[in-house]
């Protein structure tokens, strides 16, 4: 029988081929077991179907139309919740890009911000034409206090979001921004400003699609 040391070495070898440095900690040890996004479940099931039909290229993510073999829902690690700003609410967003291995080629980064009001959103507001005014900035230097904070931002998006009873979402292609975040000392995150309406619950994810060329050989070869 193999010794525990042999088994550990074998496991490390296989985990490293999966792109993992060690065995991830068990789900039941996590403070909040992360919800699996329904879009990922759909992609997982459709990849199973395509595999059975043998018409899939495992190095292409058909749902996004880009090359890739890894899809990550990177969760927001921005500090604190929504805080009042001079004319609404402000939230810091931060996505840890070090989860990508250097060998991986980033082919898509898509920000998904979902606003939930739930029962807080009154029927009066819903029936009105009011929307939520959303502005997204990229922070280009460490966030400073006061007036400097405004000058250290670059506008990425400004739009009005129509109110929906359950939730509503904003998506934005951030591929080039996320690629620049991979360089050391370049990732200061984003700032999301919400004007006019108060108290939506904000959930943000950065969907990253990447290709590990070492693990994704072309079918033609």
């Amino acid at each position, binding site marked *: 029988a193999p010794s525990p040391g042999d088994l550990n070495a074998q496991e490390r070898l296989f985990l490293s081929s999966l792109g993992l440095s060690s065995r991830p900690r068990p789900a039941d040890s996590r403070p909040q077991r992360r919800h699996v996004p329904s879009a990922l479940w759909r*992609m*997982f099931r459709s990849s199973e179907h395509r595999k059975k039909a043998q018409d899939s290229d495992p190095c292409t993510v058909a749902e996004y139309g880009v090359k890739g073999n890894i899809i990550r829902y990177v969760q927001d690690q921005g500090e604190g919740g929504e805080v009042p700003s001079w004319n609404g609410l402000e939230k810091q967003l931060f996505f840890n890009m070090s989860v990508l291995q250097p060998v991986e080629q980033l082919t898509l980064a898509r920000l998904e911000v979902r606003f939930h009001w739930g029962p807080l959103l009154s029927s009066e507001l819903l029936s009105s034409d009011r929307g939520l005014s959303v502005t997204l900035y990229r922070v280009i230097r460490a966030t400073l206090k006061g007036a400097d904070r405004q000058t250290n931002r670059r506008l990425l998006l400004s739009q009005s979001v129509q109110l929906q009873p359950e939730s509503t979402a904003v998506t934005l292609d951030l591929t080039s921004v996320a690629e620049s975040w991979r360089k050391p000392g370049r990732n200061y995150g984003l700032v999301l400003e919400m004007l006019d309406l108060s108290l939506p619950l904000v959930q943000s994810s950065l969907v990253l699609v990447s290709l590990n060329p070492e693990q*994704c050989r072309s079918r033609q070869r």
Partner: protein
Amino acid sequence: RSAVHLPVSPSNVCRARRLYIDFKDVGWQDWIIAPQGYMANYCHGECPFPLSETLNGTNHAILQTLVHSLDPQGTPQPCCVPIRLSPISMLYYDNNDNVVLRHYQDMVVDECGCR
């Protein structure tokens, strides 16, 4: 030297055998979200002389079986190995609690051959 023909029953001939890998058996059920296991299969069996076309032998393997039949002690039979594999997708939590869907090539043995 004359070739030695050893009888090989069809059940001993190189081919893919069923193997279901249950991630619970390797203690990975806590971080792999799906699938819980999959049909990985494996190759097993002999590569006897003469190699039939169904055994997908290379020219080298055909010659090796011939030499093996003449000198069973000095030259082994070719190996029964995977010649066609297919990918699977796995959904799991990484160490940063992100949910990851990853496509892995060469995880399922579809076909075996003598090489």
